[in-house]
């Protein structure tokens, strides 16, 4: 659709610019806020241009303990978040790949029932089953551990469903050709299936990484040891100061740091992500 209407171009560009401003403004404000001293926010207005305390704030945030009773530095919490996000992502991808593989390519009794049971868990996200899940994790002695942070979030119906659809689109002749070529179940999985679902895996990686990184409720519930605090939940904790000033400048800097990894993942995998959603290379 190619139309040559100048006012349309102007309007659409204006709309786009407005959208960008709308999205970018909070980020800008966070960046600016991190360059002012903490006292600057008590007066009631929000600064819109850089202050002169930037170096101090970032030094504190990056090198010292997070403060407000949190005994770990921010970069360590980023590490925790990263471990959790990657754990969830890889765990989800691995387990969904395997379950989709079983459901699509193997004939076993109650195959469809298995699929629908997995599918039904879509209705049971962590928030819904949080009390029993907590109970189980607590009984297994997994509170305050990386396993406890990741394991309950790994089972995934969405990813299983996505891989099932992807596998179903692989032509039967290809499977048969591989059988004749002497590829057993393992070889077929690693040599044929995995490379063919590469783009799907990448797309899912992006979605799941962000999902894992942004987990709030679950880490909040099961970590009481500062060593396992994740970044997203700690921001909230840094806010709840009982007396004295809220260190807005540090919190804003931390927020910016918390945004970085998801942004990096999206930018880094954008090409594959789009390809995974639109492309059918089979």
């Amino acid at each position, binding site marked *: 659709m190619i139309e040559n209407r100048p006012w349309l171009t102007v309007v659409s560009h204006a709309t786009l610019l407005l959208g960008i401003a709308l999205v970018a403004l909070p980020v800008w404000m966070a960046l600016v806020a991190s360059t002012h001293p903490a006292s600057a926010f008590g007066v009631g207005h929000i600064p819109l241009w850089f202050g002169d305390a930037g170096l101090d704030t970032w030094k504190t945030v990056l090198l010292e303990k997070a403060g407000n009773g949190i005994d770990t530095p921010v970069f360590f919490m980023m590490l925790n978040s990263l471990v959790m996000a990657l754990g969830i992502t890889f765990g989800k991808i691995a387990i969904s790949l395997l379950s989709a593989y079983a459901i699509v390519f193997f004939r076993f009794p109650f195959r469809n029932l298995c699929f629908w049971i997995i599918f039904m868990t879509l209705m049971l996200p962590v928030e819904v089953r949080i009390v029993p899940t907590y109970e189980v994790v607590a009984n297994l002695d997994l509170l305050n551990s990386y396993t406890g942070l990741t394991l309950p979030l790994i089972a995934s119906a969405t990813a299983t469903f996505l891989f099932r659809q992807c596998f179903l689109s692989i032509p039967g*002749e290809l499977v*048969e050709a591989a059988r004749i070529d002497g590829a057993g179940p393992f070889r077929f999985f690693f040599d044929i299936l995995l490379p063919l679902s590469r783009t799907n895996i990448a797309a899912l990686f992006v979605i799941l990484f962000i999902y894992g990184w942004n987990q709030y409720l679950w880490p909040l519930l099961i970590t009481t040891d500062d060593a396992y605090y994740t970044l997203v939940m700690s921001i909230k904790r840094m806010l709840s100061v009982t007396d004295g000033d809220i260190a807005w400048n540090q919190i804003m800097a931390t927020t910016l740091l918390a945004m970085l990894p998801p942004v990096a993942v999206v930018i880094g995998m954008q090409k594959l992500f789009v390809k995974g959603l639109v492309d059918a290379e089979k």
Partner: protein
Amino acid sequence: MTDVILEKIGKTYPNGYHAIPSVDLSIEEGEFIVLVGPSGCGKSTLLRMVAGLESISEGELRIRGERMNEKEPAERDIAMVFQNYALYPHMTVYNNMAYGLKNRKVSKNVIEQKVTDVAEMLGLTDLLQRKPGQLSGGQRQRVAMGRAMVRDPKVFLFDEPLSNLDAKLRVQMRVEIRQLQRKLGTTTLYVTHDQVEAMTLADRLVVLNKGKAEQIGTPMDLYNKPATPFVASFIGSPSMNLLPANLVEQGVQISSSLTLPLSHNYRGCVVWGIRPEHLEITDEQNADFALRIQAVESLGAETLIHGVLEEESKKGIPMVVRLSGPHLPELNSLMWLTAPVKHWHLFDEITQQRL
């Protein structure tokens, strides 16, 4: 030496559908066998049973004397070329061809040697580093064949490999497949629904109908002496003219007014057939019967004339005449024809067997 033996092979699906009742076939070493039949006749199922992609419900399959029923496809030492080629889209042509050998733990040098040789034979040398997505239909077809040839199997299986190619390429590949098979001397089982492909490729043809082998024989056998009306109508294009008739003392009684003289000791209902190319134009005195012309198809080298019988009680039965060279008869006019006795085909109407 007999290479492949199908002994009373049958297929019953779990839902009780009896796709193939019983097929017997023994294939000599180096023979090119074509399974041909209309769609749904079970030819692909039969091939897939030989490949091991479909379980064998009844009977026994032996390759070089060894029972194969329970063996995995990879253990049968067969190679298959699929209709949609089934190339691995993420692998280069080289890897596509090498994959089967890699899985068999053949050493790298040997693989390279074999792949290069086969690629050269098929003219794929320049394409080895490409991926299937970057190849044309004909090239993909070659790669699929190369993948089969590299393995140097006991038996080649082809499942309608040419049906996705355009007409010109199909003819070219047909010739090529035949030459390659001769050169390699590998026993081949080839499935097609195209009777021209079947006739030109086969050492022996198996005509399948509803899961039964109607006739097994050389293309010329099947053309000259079809065993059943089904084979008669399936082999040859346009297909044979078949008319219900009565065999009486005077000959073949086609209608109350038309009896073609013949001495035969069989009596009763028969199917009388003659191929379009065997009907001859003549004048009214010497004619056996007349045809009312309805359509003329001029193909240059030959002319196909479609008409209907003018005889009492058999009025309107369509017949086709094939004449060499251009002819331009007038539509709706009468055409006088004679059917030489030596070209007749007679089948028992009840048993459907050749008389």
